C-alpha cells in the first residue's frame, strides 16, 4: 500500500553551516592553528598574494594552503611550485561557494596538526562565499584596484564578514579611476574596525603591513 506523509525537516541551511563552523573554529583554536580564509572576485589576485605572503612567512611558521576551485587545479600547482609548502586542491563540482563540510574535509585531507597557519583560497565570488562560514579564524577580503572602489557598497555582506581588507594591484592605480579614500570609507561603512591594507603583490609595496597583520592573527590563536 502507498502511504503519503509529511516529514518535518526545519533545517536552516545557513544555521547548520554556522554551527559546524563554530565547532571547527573551536577545534583549531584548541590546536593553536590559524585558519585564514581569503575571498575576492575572480582574478583579484588571491593566488598571487598567497604566494607572496607564504614566501614572506614560511621561514618562521609552518604553513599549508588549500586551493578551492570549481573545476581546475592550476592554482594549487602555482602555489606548490612557487612556495614549496604543502598545498592541496579541492573542487566544488560546479558550485560557486564552499560549504563548511567541504572546508572541514579539506583540512583533514591537508593534515593540519603540524601547522601554524592554513590559508584557504576560496572560490572567486563576492556573493555567496560570504554567506557560508568556513570555520576560518580570520577572513581576509581582497579588492583589486581595477574592480573599482565601490565594491563594498555593492557587496555589503562580503565586507561585513571581513576581518581585514587588502586592496591589491596598487601599482596600477594611475591607470584607473580608483580613490583610496573612497575605498577606505566604503569599507568602513560595512566594517568600521577592519584594518585596510593597500598593497601590490607585483612590486611588494605595502606587503610588510599585511604580513604583520597575518602574524598578529597567528599570535591570537597561539596564546
Amino acid at each position, binding site marked *: *500500500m*502507498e*502511504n*503519503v*506523509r*509529511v*516529514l*518535518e*525537516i*526545519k*533545517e*536552516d*541551511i*545557513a544555521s547548520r553551516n554556522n554551527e559546524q563552523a563554530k565547532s571547527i573554529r573551536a577545534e583549531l583554536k584548541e590546536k593553536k592553528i590559524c585558519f585564514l580564509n581569503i575571498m575576492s572576485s575572480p582574478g583579484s589576485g588571491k593566488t598571487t598574494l598567497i604566494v607572496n605572503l607564504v614566501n614572506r612567512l614560511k621561514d618562521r611558521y609552518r604553513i599549508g594552503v588549500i586551493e578551492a576551485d570549481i573545476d581546475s587545479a592550476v592554482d594549487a600547482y602555482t602555489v606548490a611550485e612557487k612556495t614549496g609548502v604543502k598545498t592541496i586542491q579541492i573542487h*566544488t*563540482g*560546479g*558550485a*560557486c*561557494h564552499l*560549504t563548511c563540510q567541504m572546508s572541514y574535509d579539506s583540512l583533514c585531507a591537508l593534515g593540519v596538526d603540524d601547522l601554524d597557519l592554513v590559508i584557504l583560497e576560496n572560490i572567486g*565570488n563576492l*556573493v*555567496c562565499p560570504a*554567506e557560508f562560514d568556513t570555520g576560518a579564524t580570520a577572513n581576509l577580503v581582497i579588492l583589486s584596484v581595477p574592480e573599482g572602489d565601490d565594491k563594498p557598497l555593492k557587496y*555589503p555582506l562580503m565586507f561585513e564578514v571581513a576581518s581585514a581588507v587588502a586592496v591589491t594591484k596598487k601599482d596600477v592605480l594611475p591607470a584607473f579611476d580608483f580613490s583610496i579614500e573612497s575605498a577606505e570609507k566604503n569599507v568602513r*561603512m560595512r566594517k568600521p574596525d577592519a584594518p585596510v591594507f593597500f598593497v601590490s603583490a607585483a612590486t611588494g609595496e605595502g606587503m610588510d603591513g599585511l604580513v604583520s597583520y597575518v602574524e598578529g592573527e597567528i599570535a591570537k590563536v597561539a596564546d
Partner: protein
Amino acid sequence: MHELGIVVHVIEQVEKVAEENNVEKVARLSLEVGEVSSVVPDLFRDCFEWSKKKTKYLQDCELELIILEGLSYCQDCGETYKTTEYAKKCPHCGSYNTYLVTGNEINIKDIQVVTRT
C-alpha cells in the same frame, strides 16, 4: 551560479532524510526563502528541475517556494521597516544603525514522502 550550489546542498540533505526514513519517493519539497537571501526563485527552480533528474528519490518532486519578507530593525529609534524598500537606511529616523531581522533565510521546511508498506 550560486543557486546551483544551494540546490545541490538542499538535495543532498533531502536525499539523506529520504534514505534514513526508507521512503520510496519524495513528492513535494517545501523551502522557505528569504526575500533578501541570495537566492533568486526563478533561477532556483530551473536549477532544481535540472538537478532532480539525477537524484534517487526526487525524480518527480514538486518544489514549493515560500517567500519570507525582509524586515530590518533600527537600533536608534526602535522601529521595524521593509528591507527591500529602504535597505540599510531607516525610513523613520534616517539612521544606518540597523540590522536585518528576517529575510535572509534558506530553510528546508518539510517534505511530503511516499512510502510503501
